[in-house]
């Protein structure tokens, strides 16, 4: 594992390369950016320390993204559910958002990100929060409650195949598979 101050061991580098969709260049860049976020004294123990969510959210790629908090929560493996990330969680994040990740991985994580209450399905509350994130915070772009209601009922009519009132992962993936633009838009590059 990471031994010297700011260097990745060759073993762990090749292991990361095999298990994620990132190239060696991307892993090294991620390492550099991650160590910049850590405190000085934590930099020796790469995998033991977690960077709190507030620091992760200072990254320019995530700073203004309306889904930034959900992204941190989904990829975080902390027991306290505070959205803090270790280096390996960070690599997971970048791998899911990378160029070569498969459609299944991307759609899986997209589903988890959009599932605001973490119950495994997208119900009306989740969809409403999702639409509000998409349309922004200003008053003139928000949908009225009437439009929201109509929109959600249309979405459920279109994508809820088993008519249980929620969109589960398979139905979500079914919708995603028809959109050729999804793979190119679900990308974050450092």
């Amino acid at each position, binding site marked *: 594992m990471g031994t010297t101050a700011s260097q990745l061991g060759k073993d762990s580098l090749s*292991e*990361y390369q095999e*298990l994620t*969709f990132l*190239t*060696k*260049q*991307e892993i090294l860049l991620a390492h550099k950016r991650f160590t910049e976020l850590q405190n000085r004294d934590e930099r020796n123990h790469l995998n033991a320390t977690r960077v709190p969510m507030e620091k992760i959210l200072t990254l320019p*790629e995530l700073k*203004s*993204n*309306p*889904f930034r908090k959900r992204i941190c929560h*989904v*990829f975080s*493996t902390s*027991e306290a559910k505070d959205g803090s990330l270790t280096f*390996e*969680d960070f690599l997971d994040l970048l*791998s899911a958002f990378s160029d070569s990740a*498969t459609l*299944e*991985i991307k759609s899986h994580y*997209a589903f*988890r990100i*959009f*599932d605001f209450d*973490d*119950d*495994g399905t997208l119900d009306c509350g989740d*969809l409403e929060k*999702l*639409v509000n994130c*998409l*349309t*922004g915070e200003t008053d003139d*772009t928000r*949908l009225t409650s009437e*439009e929201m209601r*109509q*929109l959600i009922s*249309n*979405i459920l009519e*279109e*994508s809820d*195949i*088993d008519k*249980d009132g929620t969109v589960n*992962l*398979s139905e979500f993936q079914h*919708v*995603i598979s*028809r*959109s*050729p*633009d*999804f793979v190119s*838009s679900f990308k*974050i*590059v450092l």
Partner: protein
Amino acid sequence: MSMRVRRTPAVQQPQTSSRDSVHTPTGTKDGIIHPELKEISTEDRPDYLVGLGLGCFERNKEELASDLRGLSVSEGMRKLRAMPLSLVDKMKIRRRCFSPSAVKSLNRNFPCFNLPLVYISRMWRHSTFNALPFLSTLKLWHSSMKKLSGRYGTGVLSYFLFLRTLLFINLLLFFITCLFLVIPQAIHPPPMDSRLNSVTAIELLTGTGYLSQSLMFYGYYSNVTIETNQMSSHIAVTHMVPYCIPTAYFLTITVSFFITCIILVYSMSKSFGKSFQVLKSNRNLSENIFCSWDFKVSKKPSIRLQCEKISTQLKEQLSELTSREEEMSLMQRFGNLIVHVLAWITCLASILLSAMGVYFLSKHTVISEFKNLDLLITSAVVSGFNLLLPGIFNLCSWFEKHSSPSTRVYVSVFRNLLLKISLIGVLCYHWLGKIAVKQDRQVLECWENFVGQELYRLLLIDFIFTVLYTFLGEFIWRCFSKKVLKKNRKPVFDIARNVLELIYGQTLTWLGVLFSPLLPAVQIAKLFVLFYMKKSSLKLNCQASKKPWRATQMTTLFITLLWFPSFLGAAVCVVYTVWMIKPSSGCGPFRNLTSMFESGKLWAERMKDSHKILSWLIRAYNTVIDNPLFLFLPTCVFLLVIYFHAQIVDGQRKIIRRLEKQIENEVKDKKFLITQLQHWNEENKTDSTQR
């Protein structure tokens, strides 16, 4: 070993066996019980962990590990990588399934005599593995494109990607012509009688004077076979390596067109495959919600713009859905029709007038022997029409009411395309139909040179006009709208129009390669400068469009347009020229032949005598390709294959619909059975309490 997993709270229930169905009826909503059935089946789907809210139990991890152990190391690694588990879990599974020695020494089982090969292959794999990321960052304009996509989104990015693709196609073309044509001729320059030694700026623009007697244009190339002398080392024997320039010219053009054709067809089929949807249904709304957020965009104002774009699109679609219920009155429909007809008449009339204007002007140019800057008038007029008329089309389309935004884009693309096709068509007809056939010695001694120069001028003037329009036009419009209209609204970067400009320039290049082998170099320089110019103009003057832009389908459309009117049209013109038109007898490599194609035939004759393989090839060509029956059969086969595939797609659509219906019915059945079960349970309970 407790695994650190990303648990979703819903599946925190104890499990008896992995094949149980666990139903937990949740609270009643509207009086109906919605049971949530979570079947955890460990069948052969390797992504069975994906199908639920992720409860990763020990049992499942064991089965996953045993699954992976059965596969080879690389297969297993690939499968493990594609699973949506956390990196920590993946590393643990990896250690469990594959012993570290097995992973490291993948090659240890090879027998001894293979060892050097093993080392070489391992070294090769390592070096390519390490070199690939380096090579991908070497990709041209990689960081600029990333910044652009971060600020403006995927739509604008597709324009710049298209520009880069064209640059590479032109580089290939230039490389082939340079290597086989320009360099051999440059090493052995033909004797020219009156050589002008300097080139003035005007001549650079018009392509006349010094340039007309240079490598740039057709007229310079000689029709002789260059014999080079090579001394071999020990005996002073001259070794003749004949290089026949006319044959080289003919073959270079043919081969480069053939290669470009293959590249275009391949990229078109790849792009079409990406954008084709088996089920074209009206599920646009959910697709928009789930897939429209572009995560690459990172700047705050761009994110705000994206939110606005999505919000506008959603509101439009919702209002469309509600208004679909209200039928438009007859008067409104009639009014719409009138507006459409008027708009189309205006556009077609303007196209016709401009085409006629260009035709008469070009006729006039030849007759009255313009000199110097007057030669530029035709090109200036063509470029002027190319700039003005799309503005008129935009104005017309502003009045029209289209059923959807994508229809509007398609209509404007079609009109623009029609304009460019008619302008180029008129010019080609004039050159190939009139000038080449008439061959009036007094007027034009070398018509190919003239055509090459015209194309060179068109390309250059088009570039100059684009530069002027980009900087001055957009800048002036912004000042105008700020001061006079008092609105701080920047002009929108019109992606469709800019892409069509690129396609137009590329068509001119392809038409001109035959007459001016160095024209791809001009186009390369132009594209290079255009990239930086458009990038800076985008930052200064424009803003991203508020309308949604379906990037993949538009890219498919543009590559198809590059193939169908653009490349095929140029190829047809070139083939016609090579086959039918008599080359001028005073200049060029095909001086004394009846057609350029004849040089290929002469070469075939010569080769037949000297090389046996080539004679067999030529005989095969004469029987197979020249014979219409042999062309008819493969065409039939292709048509059958296409029909077969279309039927398969149709069948798949039907199957999908049936499966959806089936799922719905199954859920209804389950609901019914569960309500019955509960009903009987309650009855039993009341019975037992009563007893």
